[in-house]
């Protein structure tokens, strides 16, 4: 399995993303009225597979995906807005209406080959890895 060599800057970016996510960044945004969906990123031999749980999203037409070689942005509108009236402080006044998440991919992918499916609230995006593959003959 070939991996793109990661630069020190990739490691630093990833470290601070995780630190921010763990320590500082809530999974909601009161200005944009959006929630961050739960996602999973799995790297396989030929693909990177990103799945996302999108409750209250019913139609694939409500989902927008933007992909580059190393990022995937997931945006989705909920059919029904969501609000918890007694929760926290500022967030209790917000009706959340959408999901948004920027996903940093573990390796470079080919955006043109990406495919996505949506079933029972679960989004699945398959991103072919940008690798050159050679066959080695065993003598």
């Amino acid at each position, binding site marked *: 399995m070939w991996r793109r060599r990661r630069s020190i800057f990739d490691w630093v970016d990833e470290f601070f993303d995780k630190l921010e996510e763990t320590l500082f960044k809530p*999974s909601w945004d009161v200005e944009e009225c959006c*929630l*961050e*969906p*739960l996602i*999973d990123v799995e790297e396989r031999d030929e693909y990177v597979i990103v799945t996302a*749980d999108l*409750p*209250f999203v019913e139609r694939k037409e409500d989902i927008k995906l933007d992909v580059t070689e190393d990022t995937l942005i997931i945006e989705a509108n909920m059919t029904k807005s*969501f609000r*918890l009236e*007694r929760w926290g402080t500022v967030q209790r006044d917000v009706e*959340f209406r959408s999901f948004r998440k920027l996903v940093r991919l573990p390796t470079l992918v080919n955006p043109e080959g990406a495919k996505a499916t949506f*079933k*029972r*609230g*679960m989004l699945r995006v398959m991103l072919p890895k940008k690798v050159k593959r050679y066959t080695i003959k065993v003598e």
Partner: protein
Amino acid sequence: MVEEVEILELVPVEAEGAKAVEGLPDVGLVGAIATSYLVDQLGMEEVAHVDSELLPPIMVLHKGKLKNPIRIYGSRDLLILVSEIAIPVEALNPLVKALAGWFKEKGIGLMISLGGIPVPNRLDIENPAVYGVPNGEEASRLLMNSGIELMEEGFVAGAYAMFLRESMKRSMPAVALLAQSYLQYPDPGAAAATLNALGKLLGQVFDVKPLLDKAEEIRIKTRDLMKQARTAMMGMQKPRENEVPLMYT
């Protein structure tokens, strides 16, 4: 000597011969969702909570009242352990030992863990199957008499594995009811399946329709707990559950 984990009773708890159900946050939050729903559905009162310096410095507010995040609800016949935080792996053994000891002291007749078994094709499964893991002959008979299929070979890891072990050491029958579920995502459908199996075991029917009706809301509300549980699960060697044991026969 100060105990590492204390179970603090809010009222005197008498539970001789009762059943105890636990659903600490784990795969798909199946047990956590099932136990919190059951407490609400049965209108149970809090009877005790867990205190320990091994746990993160977190308290929770409900209806303006401050509560410990790990609590026990009870009636004469049933005790239910609920946790609103993922258990750090370093706290798991002392926590489960203390709880198993307390349940034994109270005379619990059967310890029941509710949880999930991750399956890769969960999206294609309409009605998740539930499997039982017994900790001995008596527990095995209970599962078979209830029509619950037993898991026969494999590894089990995490809180429910510890409850099975600690109950066995204390000669207390224990079972785990595990539903096919998502690994990384909250799974109210799997939680409902475990409650149906629990009903068969206890000879009663739990109404799971309200749980399924609120599935999407539950999936949103439990996102952060699921993230915590994911981190905790890695420390519990959950991936070992995919392996074949050496002495498979």
